[in-house]
């Protein structure tokens, strides 16, 4: 049974339908990449999974149980953490406070302390800046903080919305190495990316969204050789 299943999910913003009934599966332990141009509905899909948006129809199953229509905080408690686009760190909190609120839904102090230690070991830059205001971090550090914060909720499924946005290529490579490591440690990841190369290198399966519908889905190796993807996203004629 897949960890996350979307069946015929439709989402509307007022009169405009942003998702025209999409089907998507994320298996336990995978990194699934969700690709597509601007406005294709990638972020909308993530926001629907994390409960920030309610689908107009269709079902979202997490671990076999329907979660569509649940408020976001209940979904976080079930084990889905969302790193929103543009990182969404709390700029006036210190790095340490940002991490602390990440564990907001948990009450096992010892477990939280251990996870915090694990995150700080994974992102040594954050340890150097624990007492600093998060707004003073560089873009890459902020992205690391946003991911670290999400990890403190100890999610089974991590939703990443454009982690490479606005970052230098060197930093993007670092971030993707960390994403792989988080996945190797046992967290399933649904990744939205515009950086198709990096995303397909990391992913074990890929979906391509086009104006609110799934245009194709396949293994990364196949997607990379597909003419459609090459033309649209890889800049190869």
């Amino acid at each position: 049974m897949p960890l996350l299943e979307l069946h015929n999910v439709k989402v509307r913003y007022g009169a405009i339908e942003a998702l025209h009934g999409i089907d998507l599966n994320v298996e336990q332990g995978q990194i699934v990449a969700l690709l597509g141009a601007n406005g294709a509905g990638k972020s909308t899909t993530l926001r629907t999974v994390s409960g920030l948006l309610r689908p107009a129809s269709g079902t979202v199953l997490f671990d076999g149980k329907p979660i569509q229509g649940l408020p976001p905080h209940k979904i976080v408690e079930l084990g889905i953490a969302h790193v929103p686009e543009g990182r969404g760190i709390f700029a006036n909190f210190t790095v340490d406070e940002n991490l602390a609120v990440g564990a907001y839904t948990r009450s096992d102090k010892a477990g939280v302390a251990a996870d915090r230690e694990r995150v700080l070991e994974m992102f040594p830059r954050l340890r150097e800046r624990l007492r600093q205001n998060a707004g003073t971090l560089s873009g890459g550090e902020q992205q690391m903080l946003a991911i670290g914060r999400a990890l403190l909720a100890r999610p089974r499924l991590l939703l990443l919305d454009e982690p490479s946005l606005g970052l230098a290529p060197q930093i993007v490579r670092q971030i993707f190495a960390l994403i792989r490591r988080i996945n190797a440690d046992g967290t399933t990841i649904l990744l939205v990316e515009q950086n198709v190369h990096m995303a397909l290198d990391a992913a074990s399966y890929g979906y391509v969204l086009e104006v609110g519908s799934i245009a194709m889905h396949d293994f990364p190796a196949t997607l990379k050789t597909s003419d459609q993807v090459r033309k649209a996203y890889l800049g190869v004629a």
Partner: protein
Amino acid sequence: MELLATRARDYRPPTWLAILRGLLGPTIVVLLAVVLQRYSKSLFADEYRVWDDVLLKVGVNVILAVSLNIVNGYTGQFSIGHAGFMAVGGYTAAFLSYYGSFALWGDTMPHGGFLSCVSEPAEFVGRFADTGDAWFLLVLLAAGLAAALAGVVVGLPSIRLRGDYLAIVTLGFGEIVRVLLDSTEGTLSAEEIPEHSWASRAHYLGGPMGFFGQPFYTTHFWVWLFAGVTILTAYRLKASTFGRAFLAIRENEVAAQSIGVSTTSYKVYAFVISAFFAGIAGALYAHQLGNALAPSELCYQKSFDVIIMVVIGGMGSITGSILGAVLVTALPEWLRQPTHVWHVGLAMILVALAFSRFRVSRTVVLMALLTAALELMRFLSLHYEVNLERYRMILYALSLIAFMLLRPQGFFGVYEAWDAVRFWRLRPRGKTAAVGATP
């Protein structure tokens, strides 16, 4: 993983130490309140006796500002209805203490002991539970609860509204309370009370003229006890997971949702906590000698006064709210009877210096200029015998405008006085901070 978890447990302080630490704050608050109550009479020389009264007003305003800061500062929701909560609390308290005193003692006179006795010597009669002290404590808590209930009513629409729209709803709430109170009738005299049932007495709350006849129980003890409790609550909130949810909503509502904060519930919690303390402040206001508990005194003008305190101090800062309450309350009084202020100015310059790590920052200059201006005003008014009192509201308004032009984020910004230590450690000497407005 396992090993780290064990180590984390080892680092936790022992239970007895945690309990002692937790009790430290409340103990200091109670001690301070008792000491102030005992020695308040000898605090000011006779010619400055009016400051004794101002000190009580400062305390009530500290409660109002620190509690409003929980909604406006912590949670980032803009409320202009704080006076409404204050009125709900104040009138609930006055109703209970006036009509309740009659039911308990057959008259509406104060029956206070040491804790709530304005005149000396304190007439402590019998057990604590039999005195007006115990009754007033219950009245204060009831006032807080009544206002908290009103907080639920106002908090619920705020789930859907934000910014200007929420501000208008809260403003409307305050006005509804005022109009309702305006439509009541004069308080019943001792002879008339028995003729009316409890429920029908709620119609006699003084009307536009205000509520008269409630016993004056408000003393330094009660004011500073609850000011201390309010500050402690705000402080603990800021440091707790529960309270960080408020701050998270202010910083980034979507991100707050994404980490599992139920933003809808927390907005209501913020209103309820804030309203509870505003209600207590209203009750203290209602029982202070010399205050008029009238609808016209508790209209939006009062709400704006409290907002000014919070904004001047810095939205989100507890120390800022306290400072704002002190300044806004004391400044108009000071203009009546100017005294030396250089010591206060010096203290503020030192705080500003601590934040900038002993560099002459803009704020340091601002504080020095402010102190110099006040001292100059004092000198001129004495030398040329100008009565500043006549111009005090103009001067007060001008100083507000000047302050907002020069330091729009308020004195402390979102920081606290004790954050100076953090800035000190972080910033290398001689270099300017990268980001973040520091006072």
